[in-house]
């Protein structure tokens, strides 16, 4: 009662003053006591739904889902609690997946271009005509220029059948942005040194880690449910978080220590850490002795990289570097240096990546609890297929996904002895980008090859999802490539700037309306998961496998798609793995239980199996293969660009509820954030007369520019600006996203890492002025 007096003093005062006597209450006036009416009510009932299993397609982590449907319509996406990628949780964009299916702007019918390429004039055609035309045009190109004249760019979980179709067609030129535009240098670093790859669904024992040294791994905003939950659990379990980022992200807000490191200088900091760890003998001596070669040479090489050397470069105090190294060593091996997901920033991402791997190796985190675990794999054999015609195109897709294993380094010439072509983007080609992964290729270089028609003609392009413009950075090259090819066929669920150029547009069913090939993953548990349709396709759309199968049939490649339906394919694969489609449809996921002995062999008296691409059975701190090619110089620090007085480092990144450039037109995610804004430090803003919400012009040294609203915040360094990635769409078909914010990709650098061939997007320097 006393609280009530607090919150409503007027009530009593009034009554008290006016009543003037207690006699009045005889009439049964309302008493002062807060008495509530206890009356009957009919509480709302939950509506009945049916459930199917699936996995998400809103980002590339692919969480396990249970999709509820009612009345022939998917109504809610829940997480599958059994799936190790997310343990039942689903993020905001995952929940907004419904709006992919129900989007008014999605591609609904096969279309044929009737105007100029890129002009946006189309007419609807039948599927038969669309597939017939595509097959005819592709075969025309094959006849005239050879099969290698087809390039395939995929981005999405539906891309697998397209890669198979392209390989069957005979081209080696299939690529996905994941390597050259995203994780390439970091995957390669681990691969070269440890013979292992840490991208995909990260194999980090986050829950048990005691010390996260996070190099801009913004795990809360560039979020993957299982990974983020694991990290949050780790933090809740008492792990120390030391976070480095020029921007105070949400991850920074969770950190025990936050360093606003100077952009592009992570490598310098890491080298200084290595220096301290080695010189102060903080490394895991037993692990080094048993599993590592090249320690002494490394010791020599890092002598010059003292914390005092790093301090002015990174603006991280030398004493802190020493302290962090010691703190970390004290908690080792339940520690790790947490690499950023996308490592395509500096002019030496490969060196940065290798420093991270080296530090982790020095702390002996491999195969240890709280460190890096060894995943298990559910063995689901691929279907039996004829050999792919082209030697380097043999893709090891043992899972439902791609395998990142490095095949042998191929020959040095564009054309090999058998008259077959090497990749046009130069990935895995001696003399060009020999260490780049030819499974994924270098998407950026593929665009260049198309635009310049070098080293040989690429005359046909097929894209499966993706958006070349907003995921790459050199618009001129991409535009030229799209205008140069003879034939471009695009398949996707949503319209975007890239598929605007297509000659034939193939609309795909959304991931809620179709089956797809299996998801075979490796976590502590091995697993295989299924995607089932939660409803019939709303529009005249087809799933990727069916499109590819029907194209294959029309190009005489039926042998590569031997099944009559995707369901038959799934059943065939699952039967080989001792299960069946009917069985997996009941549970959604089949798993091999987690096994500490296999996941953490070094904690259980086991051994670590290492095989590096260089053939070593020990971790190579300075990979021999790189030395042969002279690429070991990547280990050394390379001076990075610095902005002039009036310039800024241009940085960009993710936010938890948008994925790349794919969700800005999704009504539900757009409702959370419709346009991106430019983060600028209050001092710099004041200097330019910029206030919160003002429109500002950002322009780089190349003369590219954009107009965007300002967010004035102390959460960013004075020499840096930031914007969220994926905005600034100009495709008029994207009615929600069109014209909202600025495309960071049009301001990011398109320099190339000299060793890997991946992009160095962070080298761009920009000016900001009030409009």
């Amino acid at each position, binding site marked *: 009662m006393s609280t009530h007096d607090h919150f409503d003093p007027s009530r009593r005062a009034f009554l008290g003053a006016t009543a003037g006597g207690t006699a009045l209450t005889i009439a049964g006036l309302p008493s002062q006591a*807060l008495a*509530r*009416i*206890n*009356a*009957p009510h*009919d509480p709302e009932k939950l509506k009945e739904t049916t459930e199917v299993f699936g996995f998400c397609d809103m980002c590339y982590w692919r969480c396990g889902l249970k999709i509820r449907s009612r009345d022939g319509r998917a109504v809610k996406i829940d997480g599958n609690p059994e799936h190790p990628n997310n343990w039942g949780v689903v993020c905001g964009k995952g929940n907004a997946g419904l709006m992919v299916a129900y989007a008014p702007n999605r591609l609904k019918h096969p279309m044929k271009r009737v105007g100029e390429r890129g002009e946006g004039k189309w007419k609807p055609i039948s599927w038969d005509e669309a597939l017939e035309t595509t097959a005819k045009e592709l075969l025309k190109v094959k006849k005239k220029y050879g099969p290698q004249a087809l390039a395939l760019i995929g981005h999405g979980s539906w891309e697998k059948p397209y890669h198979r179709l392209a390989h069957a067609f005979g081209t080696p030129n299939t690529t996905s942005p994941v390597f050259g535009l995203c994780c390439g240098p970091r995957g390669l670093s681990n691969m070269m040194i440890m013979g292992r790859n840490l991208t995909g669904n990260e194999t980090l024992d986050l829950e048990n880690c005691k010390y996260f040294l996070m190099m801009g791994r913004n795990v809360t905003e560039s979020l993957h449910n299982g990974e983020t939950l694991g990290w949050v659990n780790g933090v809740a379990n008492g792990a120390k978080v030391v976070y480095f980022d020029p921007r105070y992200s949400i991850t920074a807000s969770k950190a025990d220590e936050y360093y606003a490191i100077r952009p592009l200088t992570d490598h310098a900091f890491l080298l200084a850490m290595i220096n301290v760890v080695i010189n102060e003998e903080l490394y895991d001596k037993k692990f080094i002795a048993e599993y590592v070669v090249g320690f002494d040479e490394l010791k020599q090489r890092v002598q010059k990289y003292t914390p005092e050397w790093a301090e002015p470069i990174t603006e991280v105090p030398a004493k802190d570097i020493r302290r962090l190294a010691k703190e970390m060593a004290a908690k080792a091996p339940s520690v790790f240096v947490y690499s950023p997901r996308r490592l395509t920033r500096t002019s030496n991402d490969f060196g940065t990546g290798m420093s991270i791997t080296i530090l982790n190796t020095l702390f002996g985190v491999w195969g240890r609890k709280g460190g890096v675990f060894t995943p298990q794999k559910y063995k689901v054999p691929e279907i039996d297929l004829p050999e792919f015609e082209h030697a380097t195109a043999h893709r090891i897709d043992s899972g439902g996904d791609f395998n990142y294993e490095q095949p042998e380094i191929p020959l040095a010439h564009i054309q090999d002895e058998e008259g077959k072509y090497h990749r046009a983007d130069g990935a895995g080609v001696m003399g060009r980008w020999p260490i780049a992964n030819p499974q994924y290729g270098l998407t950026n270089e593929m665009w260049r090859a198309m635009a310049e028609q070098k080293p040989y003609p690429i005359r046909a392009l097929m894209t499966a999802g993706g958006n070349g413009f907003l995921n790459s950075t050199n618009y001129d090259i991409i535009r030229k490539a799209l205008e140069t090819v003879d034939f471009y066929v695009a398949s996707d669920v949503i319209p975007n700037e890239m598929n605007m150029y297509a000659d034939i547009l193939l609309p795909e069913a959304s991931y809620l309306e179709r089956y797809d090939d299996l998801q075979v993953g490796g976590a502590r548990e091995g697993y295989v998961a299924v995607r089932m349709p939660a409803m019939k396709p709303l529009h005249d759309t087809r799933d990727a496998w069916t499109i590819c199968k029907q194209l294959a049939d029309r190009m005489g490649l039926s042998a590569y798609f031997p099944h009559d339906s995707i369901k038959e394919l799934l059943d065939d694969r699952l039967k080989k793995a001792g299960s069946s489609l009917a069985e997996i449809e009941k549970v959604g996921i089949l798993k091999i239980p987690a096994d500490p002995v296999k996941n953490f062999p070094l904690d259980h008296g086991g051994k670590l199996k290492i095989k590096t691409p260089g053939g070593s059975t020990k971790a190579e701190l300075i990979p021999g293969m790189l030395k042969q090619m002279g690429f070991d110089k990547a280990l050394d620090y390379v001076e990075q660009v610095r902005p002039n007085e009036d310039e800024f480092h241009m940085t960009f990144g993710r936010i938890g509820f948008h994925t790349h450039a794919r969700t800005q037109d999704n009504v539900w995610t757009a409702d959370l954030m419709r346009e991106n804004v430019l983060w600028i430090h209050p001092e710099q803003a004041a200097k330019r007369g910029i206030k919160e919400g003002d429109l500002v012009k950002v322009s780089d040294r190349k003369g590219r520019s954009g107009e965007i609203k300002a967010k004035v915040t102390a959460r960013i360094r004075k020499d840096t600006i930031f914007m969220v990635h994926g905005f600034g769409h100009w495709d008029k078909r994207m009615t929600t996203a069109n014209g909202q914010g600025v495309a960071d990709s049009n301001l990011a650098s398109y320099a190339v890492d000299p060793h890997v061939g991946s992009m160095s997007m962070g080298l761009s320097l920009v000016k900001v002025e009030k409009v």
Partner: protein
Amino acid sequence: MNDTDQMICVREKKTIRLHWFNALCWLLLLASGFGIISGDFVRFAPTFWPELMQGLFGGNDNLVLAHIIVGISWVAVFVFFILFNFKGVVFPFLKKVLVLTPMAAFKDTWSMVVTLAHLFGLMKNTPVPPQGRYNGAQRLLGTMIIFCSLLIIVSGLYLFFGPQLLSFSENSFYGIIFRWALVGHASSVFLVIIGLIAHIYFALIEERESLEAMKSGNVSVEFIKHHNALWYEELKQEGKV
């Protein structure tokens, strides 16, 4: 005089039935109405009442429905009565009872004050001015009840049908009207209740004969002569007494 014992019929049976129908409706509407208003900030009745009523009707939605059914029946019966008896009963009644000018209001108030004062033994030397068919208090009460009833009907209809027929989210004005309709509905009901207390008191305690008149329709001429001198004159002129 002989005519003092004479009873004359002043009301038709239908009017009497209407009065008691009206009374019954009021009883039901007050009982259900006070049961509907629930929240402590807006509720007048003590908690047990809405609890009892809403429990009895299995939820407030049903109670509201009952309230509006009684309310509409009440209005409907009145409307029919007025339509069919406008000339015979309603118009003369309105003519006699409505207080529409300030002068009339002053006169009626004065006579009401004197009447009330007499109850408490005050102003004994001031006589109540001679009254017509309806005395000052009755005329004031009648006028008030007529206007309050109109407000109650209009606001009640809006309170029930407004939310069903209008999209409140489209125009914030609809909600504003609703909230003020609630205020209007409640305050006019209170005004009527206040009047009714006097009405019932006089009928039950002071002037039992008038209650009888509302049962049988007959009043003694003596009573009229005493209470409604002007009316008596009128009746005399008309030759009814």
